[in-house]
């Protein structure tokens, strides 16, 4: 009986632990969904290629190819880290060049319906 009770308490403790963890993750998920709008622009990462960056930031890929001094055709499908290595640049440099090109490529005065903070920050 004593062993059974101890085991029962252990199950209750585990249950509460799991409920707490699930509640924490639920809040985290809900917050991520609510913050959806502010995550409009994905951070530029080494695995992405130029086409993916252009798609994520809603700009023409030609502007990004031009910024990196690459021909626009045929489309360069290499990841940015490979381009960085080829051009003897760091990923931070590549990221800065692309972000600058994105700012230039985006319309200076976004339509009123667009509330993206990144677009508002564009010159």
């Amino acid at each position, binding site marked *: 009986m004593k062993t059974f009770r101890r085991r029962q308490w252990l*199950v209750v403790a585990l249950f509460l632990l799991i409920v707490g963890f699930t509640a924490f*993750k639920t809040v*985290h998920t809900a917050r991520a969904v609510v913050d959806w709008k502010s995550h409009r622009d994905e951070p530029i990462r080494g695995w992405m290629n130029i086409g993916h960056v252009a798609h994520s930031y809603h700009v023409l890929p030609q502007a990004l190819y031009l910024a990196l001094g690459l021909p626009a055709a045929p489309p360069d499908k*290499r990841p940015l880290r490979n381009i960085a290595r080829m051009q003897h640049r760091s990923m931070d440099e590549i990221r800065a060049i692309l972000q600058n090109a994105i700012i230039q490529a985006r319309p200076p005065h976004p339509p009123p319906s667009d509330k993206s903070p990144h677009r508002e920050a564009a010159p």
Partner: protein
Amino acid sequence: LSLTDQLLAALLLYGLPLLFGVIMIASIGVPLPINLILVAGGSFVAQGEMKLWPVIIVASAAAVLGDQIGYGVSRWGGRRLVARIIRKIGFKTQFEKAEALAKRWGGPGIFFSRWLVTGLGPWLNVTSGIAEYPWRRFILWDVLGEALCAVLYVMVGYIFSDRVQAIEEILGNLAWVILGLVAAAILGWKIVRSLRS
């Protein structure tokens, strides 16, 4: 680059063969971020890098093949071999959870572990094999679940193609929430039953 980043970069470079290999290996039981790979696949479809139906068919086929390998090895390799593997690599708790789930839910357990609680999928293959769950029923639930999984995640990636990383964060958290709810439901039911007795 992290393993996830390397896989995503490789997916952009090598396309379907890489998708097939990664999903098959993950379905056997190697912990790889296949949900993110599927979402990224959907995003690459939206960008015109890949085509929708080949991605869905290849992903489903790879997952089913990996599941069949897990099931076959467990069924014909037997409980002793699996016990030895678990002793070496761990994951005893996950195995026990999956075994309990397999016994309790059978076919629906296999189906839901393909797309809803994907982390338990490989373990349910093992437990279904050991428990000698009928192969015809296993493959039916498996194909249905894996096809739904591929369609669901690829379409999420396709619709939200410009936000792969944000989606991955949400899906990653959501998977924990679902797993937590399942575990809490099982434990809660155990507590209620012991209180009644």
